[in-house]
Protein backbone atom coordinates (compact mmCIF):
# COMPACT_ATOMS: atom_id res chain seq x y z
CA UNK A 1 0.00 0.00 0.00
CA UNK A 2 2.67 2.46 1.12
CA UNK A 3 4.86 1.47 -1.80
CA UNK A 4 1.97 1.98 -4.18
CA UNK A 5 1.34 5.46 -2.82
CA UNK A 6 5.02 6.39 -3.13
CA UNK A 7 5.12 5.36 -6.77
CA UNK A 8 2.31 7.74 -7.72
CA UNK A 9 3.17 11.19 -9.06
CA UNK A 10 2.73 14.18 -6.75
CA UNK A 11 -0.50 15.12 -8.52
CA UNK A 12 -1.96 11.65 -8.11
CA UNK A 13 -0.99 11.56 -4.45
CA UNK A 14 -2.72 14.86 -3.73
CA UNK A 15 -5.73 13.72 -5.75
CA UNK A 16 -5.89 10.58 -3.60
CA UNK A 17 -5.68 12.72 -0.47
CA UNK A 18 -8.71 14.74 -1.55
CA UNK A 19 -10.57 11.55 -2.38
CA UNK A 20 -9.96 10.34 1.17
CA UNK A 21 -11.04 13.66 2.70
CA UNK A 22 -14.24 13.89 0.66
CA UNK A 23 -14.95 10.22 1.36
CA UNK A 24 -14.68 10.73 5.12
CA UNK A 25 -16.85 13.83 4.93
CA UNK A 26 -19.50 11.94 2.97
CA UNK A 27 -19.58 9.10 5.47
CA UNK A 28 -19.88 11.49 8.42
CA UNK A 29 -22.61 13.45 6.66
CA UNK A 30 -24.64 10.33 5.92
CA UNK A 31 -24.19 9.15 9.51
CA UNK A 32 -25.33 12.50 10.91
CA UNK A 33 -28.29 12.54 8.53
CA UNK A 34 -29.45 9.09 9.55
CA UNK A 35 -29.05 9.96 13.22
CA UNK A 36 -31.11 13.10 12.70
CA UNK A 37 -34.02 11.04 11.39
CA UNK A 38 -34.65 9.59 14.83
CA UNK A 39 -37.59 11.21 16.50
CA UNK A 40 -37.31 13.18 19.72
CA UNK A 41 -39.99 14.15 22.17
CA UNK A 42 -40.24 17.85 21.51
CA UNK A 43 -40.87 19.10 25.06
CA UNK A 44 -38.03 17.19 26.64
CA UNK A 45 -35.27 19.62 27.70
CA UNK A 46 -32.65 17.00 26.99
CA UNK A 47 -33.95 16.57 23.46
CA UNK A 48 -33.80 20.32 23.02
CA UNK A 49 -30.16 20.39 24.06
CA UNK A 50 -29.55 17.49 21.72
CA UNK A 51 -31.21 19.35 18.86
CA UNK A 52 -29.03 22.36 19.56
CA UNK A 53 -25.95 20.17 19.60
CA UNK A 54 -27.01 18.55 16.33
CA UNK A 55 -27.48 21.99 14.79
CA UNK A 56 -23.99 23.02 15.83
CA UNK A 57 -22.62 19.80 14.46
CA UNK A 58 -24.35 20.43 11.12
CA UNK A 59 -22.81 23.90 11.07
CA UNK A 60 -19.38 22.42 11.65
CA UNK A 61 -19.96 19.83 8.95
CA UNK A 62 -21.08 22.49 6.51
CA UNK A 63 -17.94 24.53 7.19
CA UNK A 64 -15.80 21.43 6.69
CA UNK A 65 -17.43 20.77 3.33
CA UNK A 66 -16.96 24.36 2.24
CA UNK A 67 -13.35 24.43 3.41
CA UNK A 68 -12.51 21.11 1.75
CA UNK A 69 -14.10 22.28 -1.49
CA UNK A 70 -12.22 25.57 -1.30
CA UNK A 71 -8.95 23.72 -0.79
CA UNK A 72 -9.74 21.44 -3.67
CA UNK A 73 -10.61 24.29 -6.03
CA UNK A 74 -7.48 26.12 -4.93
CA UNK A 75 -5.34 23.09 -5.64
CA UNK A 76 -6.93 22.38 -9.03
CA UNK A 77 -6.59 25.94 -10.24
CA UNK A 78 -3.03 26.44 -9.08
CA UNK A 79 -1.04 28.40 -6.53
CA UNK A 80 -2.16 31.84 -7.63
CA UNK A 81 -5.82 30.99 -7.21
CA UNK A 82 -5.08 29.34 -3.87
CA UNK A 83 -3.36 32.51 -2.67
CA UNK A 84 -6.31 34.61 -3.81
CA UNK A 85 -8.71 32.28 -1.98
CA UNK A 86 -6.77 32.66 1.25
CA UNK A 87 -6.73 36.41 0.70
CA UNK A 88 -10.52 36.37 0.48
CA UNK A 89 -10.75 34.34 3.69
CA UNK A 90 -8.45 36.87 5.36
CA UNK A 91 -10.62 39.70 4.05
CA UNK A 92 -13.82 38.25 5.53
CA UNK A 93 -12.09 37.45 8.81
CA UNK A 94 -10.77 41.01 9.08
CA UNK A 95 -14.25 42.32 8.24
CA UNK A 96 -15.67 40.37 11.18
CA UNK A 97 -12.89 41.57 13.47
CA UNK A 98 -13.33 45.25 12.56
CA UNK A 99 -17.11 45.05 12.77
CA UNK A 100 -16.88 44.14 16.42
CA UNK A 101 -14.09 46.55 17.32
CA UNK A 102 -15.52 50.02 17.70
CA UNK A 103 -13.73 52.49 15.46
CA UNK A 104 -14.13 56.22 15.16
CA UNK A 105 -14.49 58.44 12.14
CA UNK A 106 -10.79 59.25 12.23
CA UNK A 107 -9.97 55.61 11.55
CA UNK A 108 -11.73 55.57 8.23
CA UNK A 109 -8.67 56.20 6.07
CA UNK A 110 -6.56 53.67 7.99
CA UNK A 111 -9.29 51.08 7.54
CA UNK A 112 -9.43 51.75 3.82
CA UNK A 113 -5.67 51.33 3.74
CA UNK A 114 -5.83 48.09 5.71
CA UNK A 115 -8.48 46.45 3.55
CA UNK A 116 -7.61 47.69 0.11
CA UNK A 117 -3.85 48.26 0.22
CA UNK A 118 -2.21 46.27 3.00
CA UNK A 119 -4.18 43.05 2.49
CA UNK A 120 -3.74 42.77 -1.30
CA UNK A 121 -0.10 43.82 -1.06
CA UNK A 122 0.69 41.24 1.60
CA UNK A 123 -0.83 38.42 -0.42
CA UNK A 124 0.86 39.66 -3.56
CA UNK A 125 4.19 39.48 -1.72
CA UNK A 126 3.35 35.88 -0.84
CA UNK A 127 2.35 34.99 -4.38
CA UNK A 128 5.50 36.50 -5.84
CA UNK A 129 7.66 34.72 -3.25
CA UNK A 130 9.18 37.88 -1.76
CA UNK A 131 9.60 35.98 1.49
CA UNK A 132 12.02 38.40 3.12
CA UNK A 133 9.82 41.41 2.56
CA UNK A 134 6.62 39.52 3.32
CA UNK A 135 7.72 38.62 6.85
CA UNK A 136 8.54 42.24 7.76
CA UNK A 137 6.07 44.19 5.63
CA UNK A 138 3.28 44.33 8.25
CA UNK A 139 5.29 44.41 11.52
CA UNK A 140 7.70 47.05 10.24
CA UNK A 141 6.16 49.21 7.53
CA UNK A 142 2.43 48.94 8.13
CA UNK A 143 3.07 49.31 11.85
CA UNK A 144 4.35 52.80 11.07
CA UNK A 145 2.06 53.75 8.20
CA UNK A 146 -1.35 53.13 9.76
CA UNK A 147 -0.87 55.18 12.95
CA UNK A 148 0.47 58.02 10.81
CA UNK A 149 -2.69 58.02 8.74
CA UNK A 150 -4.80 57.86 11.91
CA UNK A 151 -2.84 60.71 13.50
CA UNK A 152 -3.36 62.87 10.42
CA UNK A 153 -7.11 62.45 10.97
CA UNK A 154 -6.69 64.69 14.02
CA UNK A 155 -8.59 62.65 16.60
CA UNK A 156 -6.57 61.81 19.74
CA UNK A 157 -9.42 60.15 21.62
CA UNK A 158 -8.51 56.56 22.59
CA UNK A 159 -5.79 56.74 20.00
CA UNK A 160 -3.65 53.93 21.37
CA UNK A 161 -6.61 51.62 21.84
CA UNK A 162 -7.98 52.17 18.35
CA UNK A 163 -4.63 51.69 16.71
CA UNK A 164 -3.84 48.62 18.75
CA UNK A 165 -7.12 47.04 17.68
CA UNK A 166 -6.54 47.71 14.02
CA UNK A 167 -2.96 46.51 14.26
CA UNK A 168 -4.08 43.33 15.97
CA UNK A 169 -6.76 42.66 13.42
CA UNK A 170 -4.23 42.96 10.64
CA UNK A 171 -1.68 40.80 12.42
CA UNK A 172 -4.13 37.97 13.01
CA UNK A 173 -6.33 38.07 9.92
CA UNK A 174 -3.87 39.22 7.26
CA UNK A 175 -0.37 38.42 8.50
CA UNK A 176 -1.32 35.08 10.07
CA UNK A 177 -3.55 33.98 7.24
CA UNK A 178 -1.00 34.90 4.57
CA UNK A 179 1.42 32.34 5.99
CA UNK A 180 -0.86 29.48 4.98
CA UNK A 181 -0.49 29.99 1.20
CA UNK A 182 3.18 30.82 1.82
CA UNK A 183 3.60 27.16 2.80
CA UNK A 184 2.49 26.21 -0.69
CA UNK A 185 5.43 28.08 -2.12
CA UNK A 186 8.13 26.93 0.26
CA UNK A 187 10.77 24.99 -1.69
CA UNK A 188 11.94 21.95 0.27
CA UNK A 189 14.65 19.98 -1.54
CA UNK A 190 13.10 16.96 -3.23
CA UNK A 191 9.58 18.16 -2.39
CA UNK A 192 8.54 20.14 -5.47
CA UNK A 193 4.87 20.78 -6.16
CA UNK A 194 3.84 19.13 -2.93
CA UNK A 195 3.18 22.31 -0.95
CA UNK A 196 -0.51 21.38 -0.80
CA UNK A 197 0.47 18.48 1.46
CA UNK A 198 2.16 20.84 3.88
CA UNK A 199 -0.95 23.05 4.06
CA UNK A 200 -3.07 19.97 4.60
CA UNK A 201 -0.68 18.75 7.30
CA UNK A 202 -0.90 22.05 9.17
CA UNK A 203 -4.68 22.38 8.89
CA UNK A 204 -5.24 18.75 9.81
CA UNK A 205 -3.06 18.64 12.93
CA UNK A 206 -4.36 21.98 14.24
CA UNK A 207 -7.99 21.00 13.65
CA UNK A 208 -7.43 17.60 15.25
CA UNK A 209 -5.96 19.28 18.30
CA UNK A 210 -8.85 21.76 18.54
CA UNK A 211 -11.45 19.05 18.07
CA UNK A 212 -9.99 16.71 20.69
CA UNK A 213 -9.59 19.57 23.10
CA UNK A 214 -13.20 20.65 22.51
CA UNK A 215 -14.62 17.15 22.97
CA UNK A 216 -12.55 16.30 26.04
CA UNK A 217 -13.24 19.71 27.59
CA UNK A 218 -16.83 18.55 28.02
CA UNK A 219 -16.03 15.06 29.25
CA UNK A 220 -13.63 15.92 32.04
CA UNK A 221 -14.88 17.47 35.25
CA UNK A 222 -14.67 21.19 34.83
CA UNK A 223 -11.71 22.99 36.29
CA UNK A 224 -11.20 25.89 33.93
CA UNK A 225 -7.84 27.63 34.16
CA UNK A 226 -9.19 31.04 33.26
CA UNK A 227 -12.96 30.89 33.84
CA UNK A 228 -13.39 34.57 33.04
CA UNK A 229 -12.02 34.00 29.57
CA UNK A 230 -13.05 30.47 28.72
CA UNK A 231 -15.26 28.03 30.56
CA UNK A 232 -13.86 25.08 28.66
CA UNK A 233 -10.10 25.67 28.63
CA UNK A 234 -8.31 23.40 31.07
CA UNK A 235 -4.82 21.96 31.19
CA UNK A 236 -5.76 18.26 30.96
CA UNK A 237 -7.87 18.56 27.84
CA UNK A 238 -5.40 21.03 26.37
CA UNK A 239 -2.50 18.59 26.86
CA UNK A 240 -4.58 15.76 25.42
CA UNK A 241 -5.48 17.90 22.42
CA UNK A 242 -1.90 18.89 21.74
CA UNK A 243 -0.79 15.28 22.15
CA UNK A 244 -3.48 14.09 19.74
CA UNK A 245 -2.49 16.74 17.21
CA UNK A 246 1.18 15.81 17.55
CA UNK A 247 0.36 12.14 17.13
CA UNK A 248 -1.69 12.87 14.02
CA UNK A 249 1.30 14.82 12.71
CA UNK A 250 3.64 11.91 13.45
CA UNK A 251 1.35 9.53 11.55
CA UNK A 252 1.21 11.87 8.59
CA UNK A 253 5.00 11.98 8.23
CA UNK A 254 4.80 10.31 4.83
CA UNK A 255 3.13 13.31 3.20
CA UNK A 256 5.65 15.82 4.57
CA UNK A 257 9.31 16.54 3.81
CA UNK A 258 10.02 15.87 7.52
CA UNK A 259 11.40 12.79 9.25
CA UNK A 260 9.02 11.23 11.82
CA UNK A 261 10.63 13.00 14.78
CA UNK A 262 10.65 16.30 12.96
CA UNK A 263 7.03 15.89 11.89
CA UNK A 264 6.03 15.19 15.49
CA UNK A 265 7.90 18.27 16.70
CA UNK A 266 6.46 20.54 14.03
CA UNK A 267 2.95 19.27 14.69
CA UNK A 268 3.31 19.82 18.44
CA UNK A 269 4.56 23.35 17.83
CA UNK A 270 1.68 24.16 15.51
CA UNK A 271 -0.85 22.73 17.98
CA UNK A 272 0.52 24.67 20.95
CA UNK A 273 0.53 27.91 18.94
CA UNK A 274 -2.91 27.30 17.47
CA UNK A 275 -4.73 26.28 20.65
CA UNK A 276 -3.20 29.05 22.76
CA UNK A 277 -3.95 31.55 19.98
CA UNK A 278 -7.55 30.39 20.07
CA UNK A 279 -7.60 31.11 23.81
CA UNK A 280 -6.26 34.61 23.16
CA UNK A 281 -8.99 35.23 20.61
CA UNK A 282 -11.53 34.04 23.18
CA UNK A 283 -10.25 36.67 25.58
CA UNK A 284 -10.67 39.30 22.87
CA UNK A 285 -14.22 38.17 22.26
CA UNK A 286 -15.02 38.31 25.98
CA UNK A 287 -13.61 41.82 26.03
CA UNK A 288 -16.17 42.74 23.39
CA UNK A 289 -18.88 40.91 25.34
CA UNK A 290 -19.69 38.33 22.68
CA UNK A 291 -19.27 34.59 22.34
CA UNK A 292 -18.50 34.38 18.65
CA UNK A 293 -17.36 36.64 15.85
CA UNK A 294 -19.90 37.10 13.14
CA UNK A 295 -23.01 39.11 13.70
CA UNK A 296 -24.84 38.22 16.89
CA UNK A 297 -24.20 34.57 16.30
CA UNK A 298 -25.44 34.74 12.72
CA UNK A 299 -22.96 35.74 10.09
CA UNK A 300 -22.99 35.88 6.33
CA UNK A 301 -20.91 32.76 6.19
CA UNK A 302 -23.76 30.87 7.78
CA UNK A 303 -21.38 29.59 10.43
CA UNK A 304 -20.96 31.05 13.90
CA UNK A 305 -18.36 33.30 12.37
CA UNK A 306 -15.53 32.65 9.99
CA UNK A 307 -12.91 33.98 12.36
CA UNK A 308 -13.96 31.45 15.04
CA UNK A 309 -13.03 28.67 12.64
CA UNK A 310 -9.75 30.00 11.35
CA UNK A 311 -8.23 31.83 14.34
CA UNK A 312 -6.19 28.82 15.51
CA UNK A 313 -4.77 28.50 12.01
CA UNK A 314 -3.91 32.21 11.92
CA UNK A 315 -1.71 31.78 14.99
CA UNK A 316 -0.24 28.42 14.04
CA UNK A 317 0.72 29.25 10.45
CA UNK A 318 3.36 31.94 11.12
CA UNK A 319 5.05 29.87 13.82
CA UNK A 320 4.99 26.79 11.63
CA UNK A 321 6.28 28.66 8.60
CA UNK A 322 9.14 30.38 10.35
CA UNK A 323 10.34 27.39 12.33
CA UNK A 324 10.31 25.28 9.16
CA UNK A 325 12.29 27.90 7.29
CA UNK A 326 14.75 28.35 10.12
CA UNK A 327 15.23 24.66 10.87
CA UNK A 328 15.67 23.61 7.27
CA UNK A 329 17.59 26.72 6.28
CA UNK A 330 15.30 27.55 3.37
Amino acid at each position, binding site marked *: MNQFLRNLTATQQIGALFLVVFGILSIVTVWAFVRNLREHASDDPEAEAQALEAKRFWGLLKTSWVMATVFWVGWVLGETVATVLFAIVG*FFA*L*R*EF*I*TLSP*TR*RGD*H*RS*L*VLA*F*FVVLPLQFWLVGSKHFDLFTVFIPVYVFLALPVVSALANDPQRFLERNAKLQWGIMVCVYGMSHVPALLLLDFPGYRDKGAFLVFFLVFVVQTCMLVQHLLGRRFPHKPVAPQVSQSFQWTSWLAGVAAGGLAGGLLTFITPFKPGQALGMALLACVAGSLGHLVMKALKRDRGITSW*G*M*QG*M*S*VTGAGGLLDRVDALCFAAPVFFHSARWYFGL
Partner: protein
Amino acid sequence: MLAKLMSLLLLGIVRFLTGSQARWYGCPPKAEQRIYFANHQSHADMVLIWAALPEELRSITRPIAAKDYWTKTPFRQWITTAVFNAVYVDRQATPARPAAPAAADPTVAQAPAADTDTAAAGGPDPSPEVPPRAPTPEELRAALPESDPLAPLVRALESGDSIVIFPEGTRGHGDEPQAFKSGLFKLAQMFPQVVLVPAWINNVQRVMPKGEVVPVPILCSVTFGTPIQLEAGEERRPFLDRARRAVIALREV
Protein backbone atom coordinates in the same frame (compact mmCIF):
# COMPACT_ATOMS: atom_id res chain seq x y z
CA MET B 1 -30.73 45.61 -19.30
CA LEU B 2 -28.04 48.02 -18.16
CA ALA B 3 -30.07 48.69 -15.04
CA LYS B 4 -30.36 44.96 -14.36
CA LEU B 5 -26.60 44.51 -14.69
CA MET B 6 -25.98 47.53 -12.52
CA SER B 7 -28.29 46.19 -9.85
CA LEU B 8 -26.49 42.84 -9.87
CA LEU B 9 -23.12 44.56 -9.66
CA LEU B 10 -24.30 46.81 -6.87
CA LEU B 11 -25.78 43.88 -4.96
CA GLY B 12 -22.46 42.08 -5.28
CA ILE B 13 -20.51 45.06 -4.01
CA VAL B 14 -22.89 45.72 -1.12
CA ARG B 15 -22.84 42.06 -0.05
CA PHE B 16 -19.06 41.92 -0.33
CA LEU B 17 -18.62 45.03 1.81
CA THR B 18 -21.41 44.72 4.35
CA GLY B 19 -23.00 41.31 4.12
CA SER B 20 -26.33 43.23 3.99
CA GLN B 21 -28.00 40.75 6.25
CA ALA B 22 -31.74 40.92 6.80
CA ARG B 23 -33.00 39.73 10.18
CA TRP B 24 -36.74 39.21 10.28
CA TYR B 25 -37.74 39.26 13.91
CA GLY B 26 -41.28 40.60 14.23
CA CYS B 27 -42.64 39.65 10.84
CA PRO B 28 -41.78 37.38 7.91
CA PRO B 29 -40.75 38.75 4.54
CA LYS B 30 -44.14 38.82 2.87
CA ALA B 31 -45.48 40.39 -0.30
CA GLU B 32 -48.11 42.62 1.29
CA GLN B 33 -48.23 46.37 1.00
CA ARG B 34 -45.96 47.81 3.66
CA ILE B 35 -44.35 51.00 4.83
CA TYR B 36 -40.91 50.21 6.23
CA PHE B 37 -39.69 53.01 8.48
CA ALA B 38 -36.08 53.02 9.64
CA ASN B 39 -33.40 55.06 11.33
CA HIS B 40 -31.32 57.24 9.04
CA GLN B 41 -27.59 57.68 9.43
CA SER B 42 -26.15 57.68 5.95
CA HIS B 43 -27.12 58.02 2.33
CA ALA B 44 -26.16 54.37 2.00
CA ASP B 45 -29.14 53.40 4.21
CA MET B 46 -31.34 53.29 1.17
CA VAL B 47 -28.92 51.05 -0.69
CA LEU B 48 -28.51 48.71 2.25
CA ILE B 49 -32.21 48.18 2.92
CA TRP B 50 -32.72 47.68 -0.82
CA ALA B 51 -30.02 45.02 -0.85
CA ALA B 52 -31.26 43.32 2.31
CA LEU B 53 -34.78 42.74 1.00
CA PRO B 54 -35.34 39.47 -0.83
CA GLU B 55 -35.58 39.71 -4.62
CA GLU B 56 -39.38 39.35 -4.72
CA LEU B 57 -39.94 42.17 -2.26
CA ARG B 58 -37.29 44.40 -3.78
CA SER B 59 -39.25 44.73 -6.99
CA ILE B 60 -42.40 45.95 -5.24
CA THR B 61 -40.68 48.17 -2.67
CA ARG B 62 -39.68 51.70 -3.52
CA PRO B 63 -37.17 53.52 -1.31
CA ILE B 64 -37.47 57.23 -0.72
CA ALA B 65 -34.55 59.30 -1.95
CA ALA B 66 -33.73 62.86 -1.00
CA LYS B 67 -34.20 64.84 -4.18
CA ASP B 68 -31.42 67.38 -3.65
CA TYR B 69 -28.77 64.69 -3.08
CA TRP B 70 -29.82 61.97 -5.47
CA THR B 71 -30.48 64.17 -8.51
CA LYS B 72 -27.28 66.17 -8.26
CA THR B 73 -25.46 64.25 -10.99
CA PRO B 74 -26.95 62.39 -13.98
CA PHE B 75 -25.46 59.14 -12.69
CA ARG B 76 -27.12 59.44 -9.28
CA GLN B 77 -30.39 60.29 -10.96
CA TRP B 78 -30.12 57.32 -13.29
CA ILE B 79 -29.25 54.90 -10.52
CA THR B 80 -32.11 56.02 -8.29
CA THR B 81 -34.72 55.89 -11.03
CA ALA B 82 -33.56 52.91 -13.10
CA VAL B 83 -32.03 50.67 -10.43
CA PHE B 84 -33.70 51.53 -7.14
CA ASN B 85 -36.97 52.73 -8.62
CA ALA B 86 -36.92 55.34 -5.90
CA VAL B 87 -39.48 58.00 -5.06
CA TYR B 88 -37.95 61.46 -4.83
CA VAL B 89 -38.87 63.59 -1.91
CA ASP B 90 -38.12 67.26 -1.48
CA ARG B 91 -36.32 67.79 1.81
CA GLN B 92 -36.38 71.54 1.36
CA ALA B 93 -40.10 71.53 1.85
CA THR B 94 -42.22 74.21 0.23
CA PRO B 95 -42.35 77.40 2.34
CA ALA B 96 -45.91 76.63 3.38
CA ARG B 97 -44.81 73.52 5.32
CA PRO B 98 -41.30 73.90 6.72
CA ALA B 99 -40.67 71.52 9.64
CA ALA B 100 -42.37 69.03 11.91
CA PRO B 101 -44.62 71.17 14.07
CA ALA B 102 -45.86 73.34 11.24
CA ALA B 103 -46.21 70.36 8.95
CA ALA B 104 -49.02 69.05 11.08
CA ASP B 105 -51.09 72.15 10.69
CA PRO B 106 -52.70 71.46 7.32
CA THR B 107 -54.08 68.18 8.61
CA VAL B 108 -55.41 69.80 11.72
CA ALA B 109 -56.82 72.63 9.72
CA GLN B 110 -58.20 70.21 7.18
CA ALA B 111 -60.06 68.11 9.66
CA PRO B 112 -62.59 70.66 10.89
CA ALA B 113 -62.99 72.00 7.39
CA ALA B 114 -63.90 68.61 6.01
CA ASP B 115 -66.15 68.10 8.98
CA THR B 116 -68.24 71.20 8.42
CA ASP B 117 -68.51 70.33 4.74
CA THR B 118 -69.98 66.91 5.35
CA ALA B 119 -72.11 68.21 8.16
CA ALA B 120 -73.55 70.85 5.89
CA ALA B 121 -74.21 68.31 3.20
CA GLY B 122 -75.59 65.78 5.67
CA GLY B 123 -78.67 67.70 6.73
CA PRO B 124 -80.11 71.01 7.94
CA ASP B 125 -79.86 70.33 11.70
CA PRO B 126 -76.46 68.92 12.77
CA SER B 127 -76.91 67.98 16.39
CA PRO B 128 -74.25 69.59 18.58
CA GLU B 129 -73.76 66.35 20.65
CA VAL B 130 -72.19 64.45 17.74
CA PRO B 131 -68.43 64.48 18.28
CA PRO B 132 -66.39 65.92 15.38
CA ARG B 133 -65.93 62.99 13.04
CA ALA B 134 -62.38 62.26 11.89
CA PRO B 135 -61.98 62.53 8.12
CA THR B 136 -61.81 59.26 6.23
CA PRO B 137 -58.52 58.21 4.63
CA GLU B 138 -59.91 58.96 1.18
CA GLU B 139 -60.78 62.50 2.17
CA LEU B 140 -57.34 63.04 3.63
CA ARG B 141 -55.74 61.82 0.44
CA ALA B 142 -57.95 64.02 -1.71
CA ALA B 143 -57.18 67.02 0.48
CA LEU B 144 -53.44 66.68 0.04
CA PRO B 145 -52.13 69.51 -2.16
CA GLU B 146 -50.02 68.55 -5.15
CA SER B 147 -47.08 70.60 -3.84
CA ASP B 148 -46.98 68.66 -0.59
CA PRO B 149 -43.71 66.73 -0.11
CA LEU B 150 -45.76 63.64 0.74
CA ALA B 151 -47.63 63.70 -2.56
CA PRO B 152 -45.19 61.42 -4.44
CA LEU B 153 -45.30 58.88 -1.59
CA VAL B 154 -49.07 58.91 -1.59
CA ARG B 155 -49.08 58.28 -5.33
CA ALA B 156 -46.66 55.36 -4.90
CA LEU B 157 -48.81 53.85 -2.16
CA GLU B 158 -51.98 54.36 -4.17
CA SER B 159 -50.48 52.38 -7.01
CA GLY B 160 -49.95 49.47 -4.60
CA ASP B 161 -46.19 49.66 -4.00
CA SER B 162 -44.50 49.31 -0.64
CA ILE B 163 -42.20 52.12 0.41
CA VAL B 164 -39.20 52.65 2.66
CA ILE B 165 -39.11 55.91 4.59
CA PHE B 166 -36.77 57.53 7.07
CA PRO B 167 -39.07 59.52 9.37
CA GLU B 168 -36.20 61.44 10.95
CA GLY B 169 -36.04 63.47 7.77
CA THR B 170 -32.32 64.06 7.95
CA ARG B 171 -29.38 61.90 8.82
CA GLY B 172 -28.82 61.62 12.56
CA HIS B 173 -25.47 62.09 14.26
CA GLY B 174 -25.87 60.59 17.70
CA ASP B 175 -26.61 57.05 18.76
CA GLU B 176 -30.33 57.55 19.07
CA PRO B 177 -32.53 58.55 16.17
CA GLN B 178 -33.94 62.07 16.26
CA ALA B 179 -37.62 62.73 16.86
CA PHE B 180 -39.77 61.46 14.00
CA LYS B 181 -41.47 63.90 11.68
CA SER B 182 -45.15 63.72 11.03
CA GLY B 183 -45.03 62.19 7.55
CA LEU B 184 -45.33 58.67 8.94
CA PHE B 185 -48.40 59.64 10.97
CA LYS B 186 -50.10 61.18 7.98
CA LEU B 187 -49.37 58.20 5.77
CA ALA B 188 -50.72 55.88 8.46
CA GLN B 189 -53.92 57.95 8.56
CA MET B 190 -54.28 57.94 4.81
CA PHE B 191 -53.52 54.25 4.33
CA PRO B 192 -54.85 52.34 7.33
CA GLN B 193 -54.65 49.01 5.48
CA VAL B 194 -50.90 49.28 4.81
CA VAL B 195 -48.72 47.43 7.33
CA LEU B 196 -46.18 49.62 9.19
CA VAL B 197 -42.92 47.72 9.73
CA PRO B 198 -40.17 49.25 11.90
CA ALA B 199 -36.59 48.56 10.85
CA TRP B 200 -33.22 49.19 12.47
CA ILE B 201 -30.24 49.65 10.19
CA ASN B 202 -27.05 48.82 12.02
CA ASN B 203 -23.51 50.05 11.40
CA VAL B 204 -23.95 51.76 8.03
CA GLN B 205 -22.51 55.06 9.19
CA ARG B 206 -19.22 53.25 9.82
CA VAL B 207 -19.06 51.98 6.25
CA MET B 208 -19.07 55.43 4.74
CA PRO B 209 -19.05 58.42 7.09
CA LYS B 210 -20.04 61.82 5.79
CA GLY B 211 -17.46 63.26 3.44
CA GLU B 212 -15.60 60.01 2.67
CA VAL B 213 -15.48 58.48 -0.78
CA VAL B 214 -14.16 54.94 -0.31
CA PRO B 215 -16.36 52.59 1.73
CA VAL B 216 -14.86 50.29 4.34
CA PRO B 217 -15.98 46.66 4.66
CA ILE B 218 -17.97 46.29 7.86
CA LEU B 219 -20.83 43.88 8.49
CA CYS B 220 -24.22 45.60 8.52
CA SER B 221 -27.66 44.26 9.16
CA VAL B 222 -31.25 45.37 8.86
CA THR B 223 -33.57 44.15 11.60
CA PHE B 224 -37.28 44.12 10.83
CA GLY B 225 -39.61 44.24 13.81
CA THR B 226 -43.23 43.62 14.73
CA PRO B 227 -45.60 45.83 12.71
CA ILE B 228 -47.29 48.68 14.58
CA GLN B 229 -50.72 50.18 14.01
CA LEU B 230 -52.26 53.60 14.37
CA GLU B 231 -54.80 53.10 17.15
CA ALA B 232 -58.21 54.69 16.86
CA GLY B 233 -58.01 58.25 18.08
CA GLU B 234 -54.28 58.14 18.75
CA GLU B 235 -52.66 61.55 18.68
CA ARG B 236 -49.82 62.48 16.38
CA ARG B 237 -46.99 62.89 18.92
CA PRO B 238 -47.67 59.74 20.99
CA PHE B 239 -47.89 57.69 17.80
CA LEU B 240 -44.63 59.07 16.42
CA ASP B 241 -42.86 58.48 19.73
CA ARG B 242 -44.20 54.95 19.85
CA ALA B 243 -42.95 54.34 16.31
CA ARG B 244 -39.55 55.72 17.23
CA ARG B 245 -39.37 53.48 20.29
CA ALA B 246 -40.30 50.49 18.13
CA VAL B 247 -37.33 51.26 15.90
CA ILE B 248 -34.92 51.79 18.79
CA ALA B 249 -36.05 48.58 20.50
CA LEU B 250 -34.78 46.61 17.50
CA ARG B 251 -31.24 47.62 18.26
CA GLU B 252 -31.17 45.19 21.17
CA VAL B 253 -32.57 42.03 19.56
